[in-house]
């Protein structure tokens, strides 16, 4: 079990300040600020439409792809491995391409569609490595083999040669994680990485992510709607609702002493395994009004 409050260096690794993202006049994220420190797992929690995924895509500056979204205001300061700090909102495409997948990488919800169906798993990881590192194909392949081992893919040699459709959902998600870790990023953004998986497979992936974080020391931003997942992996939480930050703090504080009515309502509506122990009949949720004044 990890320490409840991780040690923090003075300066955050990633600092989002006053981020506002709009789509055709509709505000998807509004004046959001939070900091991410080295080795920290920060969960951004919210229900659909809360703006949590848009936040993740904004950090990668992927939010504008094919949409009319734009980052209207705010800064996202990122401390690069060489010590320099860059504002990702102002960075140009060339700079961003160097950062994406290399220093900040991302895994997505749907392991079914997040791998390219026409390439083998190995090929995709090799390409990701060669995009950022000046290595030969053979060296990249060796590196891919190592990350496959690191994410505990059984028979890594064989799996490298397989196509995504030959793999189960859990295995594909491991490949995605391998690809994300292949260049030793300092920040890993995981957008609902276990939502599409069955519960026993989800447990494996969560366990894996926890172990990998201990091994690599990468900071993780976990985007999720599942409070169970949050309770299991997060150090700190950002609760979002309707594009705004509702509450932020340490995972224990939020779960035990939530202050915002919305957080209270959210926590009251979660089915908690074991909460019915000793009760003979089914029982309704004791719901809290989420719009109650503080």
């Amino acid at each position, binding site marked *: 079990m990890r320490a409840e409050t991780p040690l923090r260096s003075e300066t955050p690794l990633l600092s989002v300040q006053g981020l506002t993202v709009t789509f055709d006049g509709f505000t998807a994220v509004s004046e959001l600020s939070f900091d991410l420190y080295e080795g920290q797992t920060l969960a951004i929690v919210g229900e659909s439409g809360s703006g949590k995924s848009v936040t993740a895509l904004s950090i990668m500056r992927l939010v504008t792809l094919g949409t009319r979204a734009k980052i209207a205001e705010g800064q996202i300061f990122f401390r690069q491995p060489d010590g320099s700090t860059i504002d990702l909102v102002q960075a140009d495409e060339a700079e961003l391409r160097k950062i994406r997948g290399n220093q900040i990488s991302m895994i997505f919800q749907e392991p079914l569609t997040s791998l390219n169906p026409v390439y083998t798993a190995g090929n995709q990881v090799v390409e990701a490595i060669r995009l950022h590192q000046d290595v030969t194909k053979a060296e990249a392949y060796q590196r891919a083999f190592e990350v496959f081992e690191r994410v505990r893919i059984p028979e890594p040699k064989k799996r490298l040669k397989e196509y995504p459709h030959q793999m189960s959902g859990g295995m594909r998600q491991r490949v995605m994680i391998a690809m994300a870790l292949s260049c030793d990023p300092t920040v890993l953004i995981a957008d609902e990485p276990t939502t599409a998986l069955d519960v*026993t497979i989800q*447990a494996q992936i969560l366990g894996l992510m926890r172990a990998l974080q201990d091994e690599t020391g990468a900071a993780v931003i976990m985007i999720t709607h599942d409070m169970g997942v949050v309770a*299991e992996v997060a150090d700190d939480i950002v609760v979002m609702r309707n594009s705004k930050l509702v509450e932020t703090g340490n995972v224990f504080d939020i779960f035990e002493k939530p202050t915002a009515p919305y957080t209270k309502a959210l926590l009251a509506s979660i089915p908690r395994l074991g909460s019915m122990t000793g009760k003979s009949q089914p029982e309704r949720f004791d719901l809290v009004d989420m719009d109650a004044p503080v």
Partner: protein
Amino acid sequence: MTDFETLVEVKDLCKEFSVPGKAKIHAVEHVSLKVGKGETLAVVGESGCGKSTLAFLIIKLLESTGGQILLDGHDITHLHNKSMREYRQKMQIIFQDPFASLDPRRSVGYAVGEPLIVHGEESKGAALNERVGGLFERVGLERDHAQQYPHQFSGGQRQRVCIARALALHPELVIADESVSALDVSVQAQVINLMMELQQDMGLSYLFISHDLAVVERIAHRVAVMYLGQIVELGPRSAIFENPSHSYTKRLLDAVPIADPRQRRERPLLTGEIPSPRWEHGTSPELVNLVEVEPGHFVAEE
């Protein structure tokens, strides 16, 4: 074992699908269970375990390849269209995706009133509107909502509309196939509360198909755990959750993340796959033998 009078009984129900490559999917293998009047029986399991197929078989959206389905003591296994009609009213299903199960070009009031028209209970006019309005109120919506279209509603409201539609013909059994899985947690809790309230007021029976054990723990009287098309453990909720006896049930319960950071679980770094119920021609799964370990609590022998 249960205090409930039996409403639906399923005996040795089987469903096989032929798949290309000379193989068969044994989706449901000799499943036997009962749903009592006013009771919620939850069927849990992971993808491919056959829980949804079982629901479809019972409501006869799929034709079983073996076994019997008894509704109120009547064998409905081989009934079709006309002879099935009166029984069909007694069983309704609510699906996972409320948006996909509503016609986007029809008002939601039409969707709720349609079963009444189809079954000749009401034709058009004030009486129909009155009943539809009543159903809307019953599920916590406003009467005026009937005029609106599915896209004007939130996911939770749409699921309420689907529940209203299911209730239109006064069913005795409502099959909920992952009905709350796609909803946001706060909405999910409200819909679950509504379902429990309706059960109390109307004496409904639920066959609650779900992969979410935490939800099941809230709503179920009894629980059946399915694995590879077979029931491996069946019993009262407290027995399944407090005294799980089959190793698969334990594994399933261990895997659920608990929404409490003080209860973080150690996760072994294993890799595993969910097995497939696909069997080559000439092979078939071995049948499990259920043993009653305590009253009403059945566990497959391992």
